[in-house]
């Protein structure tokens, strides 16, 4: 066992690609005994891939993992656990219908035939006391709060003898008071010579609760620094690569003060899948001809906000207006008819029915309308002709083929969705991560289509995790964090460093009611410059 401060785990030149796309590109990482090591990066930066390799879930294409100086192979979660590496995922791996104690011993080889939970309970109590993880071993997991379930996950890893604990975005699912408890547990673990990898994209968390930070960007190392010797601004710069950002105001500055609003979201509240508030009083206004970009790290309520606007998710408060019309309680079909076009984040499965042909998917929203159907009878000729026109106009391939769309490339699919949504009569386009995973040509094509929307006097609400995309396209950038709109910029007031801080929750530009962001249409650089 390594002494405190000695390197316990080393990762050398790790490569891992999925379908030819490098998720980790010569990544290096080292972890010392008794330290809390932050792993910072945007979504898709390669954090999860690195952690999954360490947890034995993925096998690296090449590279080396050393534990205590010895090369090891981690071929399964089991082997990783045997080496003392435990991972706590965002989606807990607990069986809800079992008790805490049962979950702890599940799959343990050294457990005998008889289930002797009493002995387990004693050990659990001891560990729980040592680390401040209070959970009742007899409770059923489904009865526990999310924070308690997370404690069970940590307890499970400790019970199994983990000395290296990887926490994947542990506070993403927690309420603030539960976060504090978690940090306390993490501190306890470090004191007991355990090493903790804290995966996060929240700046305050990294700055406040780690000893060192490794930043990943686009699958590569962007640097490793001692937390005490850095600050939020330089970490944000490393994380989003601010030096590569296009200068603010590259495109012509336009003003929309007098333009009528085409989409107004006011004080929207939405409850997410896990019963926690996902959108917490967000207000956004999109005006004629304007592109409003919503910047933010994934998981901060963007998805729920989109779905609420599209009518796919129930809301618990607030209102949504499309132009003059209140669509708060309209059905998805009514919203579409009222002029809302929506390009969802999830292309296959939501945006497109994966087993249907491209032709069918191109009329997914207009199949009930003439000439595509009359009296419930589809006209294959009209559908084919529409599909041909759309495919031509948007450069979609394979419109004639009878192939299921699930076998087509991402760029082609996205163009198909755009073709369908943009050619319907609409005033507003809501687009979520429209260029994610696309190649350069397809990305350029998609952006051109989005820009063209404004020329027709339509409004666009663009959600993207790609800051470069937002700064390139948007006339107004709002920042979403923890379900709230925490800041807004026009191209002329844009401060990338500060925006990075807002995104990661290190700062709150408005510090006041969320509505102010939406109302400050001209951009109100209220926040102070980054330290």
């Amino acid at each position, binding site marked *: 066992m390594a002494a405190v401060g000695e390197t316990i785990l080393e990762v050398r030149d790790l490569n891992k690609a999925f379908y030819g796309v490098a998720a980790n590109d010569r990544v290096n990482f080292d972890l010392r005994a008794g330290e809390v090591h932050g792993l910072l990066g945007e979504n898709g930066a390669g954090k999860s891939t690195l952690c999954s390799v360490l947890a034995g879930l993925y096998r690296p294409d090449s590279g080396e993992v050393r534990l205590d100086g010895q090369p090891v192979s981690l071929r399964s979660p089991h082997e990783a656990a045997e080496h003392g590496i435990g991972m706590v995922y965002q989606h807990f791996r607990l*069986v809800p219908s079992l008790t805490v104690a049962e979950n702890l011993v*599940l799959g343990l080889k050294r457990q005998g035939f008889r*289930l002797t939970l009493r002995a387990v309970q004693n050990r659990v109590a001891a560990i729980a006391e040592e680390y401040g993880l209070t959970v009742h071993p007899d409770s059923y997991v489904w009865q526990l709060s999310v924070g308690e379930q997370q404690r069970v996950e940590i307890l499970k890893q400790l019970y199994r003898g983990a000395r290296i604990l990887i926490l994947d975005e542990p506070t993403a699912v927690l309420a603030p008071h539960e976060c504090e408890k978690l940090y306390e547990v993490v501190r306890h673990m470090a004191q007991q010579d355990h090493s903790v990898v804290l995966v996060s994209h929240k700046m305050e968390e990294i700055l406040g609760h780690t000893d060192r930070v490794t930043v990943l960007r686009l699958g590569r190392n962007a640097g490793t620094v001692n937390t005490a010797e850095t600050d939020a601004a330089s970490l944000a710069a490393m994380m989003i690569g601010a030096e590569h950002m296009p200068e603010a105001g590259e495109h012509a500055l336009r003003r929309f003060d007098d333009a009528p609003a085409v989409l107004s979201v006011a004080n929207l509240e939405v409850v997410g899948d896990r019963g926690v508030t996902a959108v917490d009083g967000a207000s956004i206004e999109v005006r004629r001809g304007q592109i409003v970009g919503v910047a933010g790290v994934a998981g901060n309520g963007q998805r729920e906000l989109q779905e609420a606007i599209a009518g796919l998710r129930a809301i618990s408060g607030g209102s949504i207006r499309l132009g003059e019309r209140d669509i708060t309680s309209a059905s998805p079909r009514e919203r579409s008819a009222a002029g809302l076009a929506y390009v969802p984040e999830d292309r296959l499965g939501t945006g497109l029915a994966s087993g249907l042909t491209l032709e069918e998917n191109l009329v997914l929203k207009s199949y009930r309308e003439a000439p595509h159907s009359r009296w419930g009878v589809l006209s294959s000729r009209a559908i084919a002709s529409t599909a041909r026109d759309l495919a031509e106009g948007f450069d979609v391939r394979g419109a004639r083929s009878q192939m299921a769309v699930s076998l087509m490339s991402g760029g082609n699919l996205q163009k198909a969705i755009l073709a369908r949504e943009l050619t319907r009569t609409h005033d507003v386009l809501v687009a979520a991560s429209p260029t994610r995973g696309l190649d350069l040509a397809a990305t350029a094509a998609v952006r051109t289509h989005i820009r063209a929307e404004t020329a027709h006097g339509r409004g666009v609400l663009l959600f993207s995790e790609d800051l470069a995309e937002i700064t390139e396209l948007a006339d107004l950038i709002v920042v979403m964090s923890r379900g709230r709109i925490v800041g807004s910029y026009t191209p002329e007031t844009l401060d990338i460093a500060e925006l990075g801080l807002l995104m990661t929750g290190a700062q709150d530009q408005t510090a006041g009611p969320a509505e102010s962001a939406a109302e400050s249409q001209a951009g109100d650089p209220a926040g102070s410059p980054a330290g």
Partner: protein
Amino acid sequence: MNDTVLVLSIVSAIVAGTPILFATLGEILTERSGVMNLGVEGMMLIGGVTGFWAGVQTGNLWLALLAGGLAGAVLSGIHALLAISLRVNQIVSGLALVIVGGGLSAFWGNSGDAPLIQSFNGVRVEPLLPEALRDLPAVGPIVFGHDPVVYLSWLIVAAAGYFLYRTTPGLSLRAVGEDPAAADAAGLSVTGIRYLFTLVGGFGAGVGGAYLALVVLGTWQTGLTAGAGWIAVALVILAGWRPWLALLASYVFGALRTLGFTLQIAGVEVPSDFLNMIPFVVTFLVVIVVSANPERARRVGAPASLGEPYSREAR
């Protein structure tokens, strides 16, 4: 008083309920692993004909039950292969077992030079306990008068209950059926456990079929289960996937199968068809009532992953 209608009908309910109990217990264990095998009727039939054949050949009840169980397990192995490895729809695969099992048992039971029925010399099934106990009023026949297989079934119920809730393999079984992804992450072999308990379920159904042919009816005839396998499928739900309740439910519905006769003796005219309907009507209603309230559904405890194939990649 030991030959009063009430005592006799309780005894006959236990006898009639025992084959259903074996099949139900087996299916409970299968479904607890997340695999739904609707082929119980087919597995009982194949177990029945095999067990009967083995009984004719050996004259030994235990060997006959073992043979019946193994035959049921072999048939369920086909379901395991299709449903677990090849991810064929479990409903369709289970129904195919019903057809195969029914066809094969009828084919085998009737073919050959001498059909089974004619060469049967009988398997001796003696009561287990001394006569003094059996002659006690009421409790004698009801509790002490049975053949060893009935007592074995009680033991198995107790063992299954203990296994499910008090042992680590039982815990693993429940975890696999509830949340295969979590079980996989905990290092359990989801596929291995599902295979094992699909086979166990087939074994149970096979033993039930063999007991039905050898002891309850004392004969083989084509399609002799007459829906007993389907009752077992229903009872798994009514018992809430719990072995002890399966015991109770099996005897209650065993009683229903003999109740028509009993009532006739008592001079009450209730059409037997309506009695036969009861398990199915009750299950139909229970399923609806339970599903109308999610909280209730959780307490009843159908394994959460029941009927869904698992593959690690398709998370």
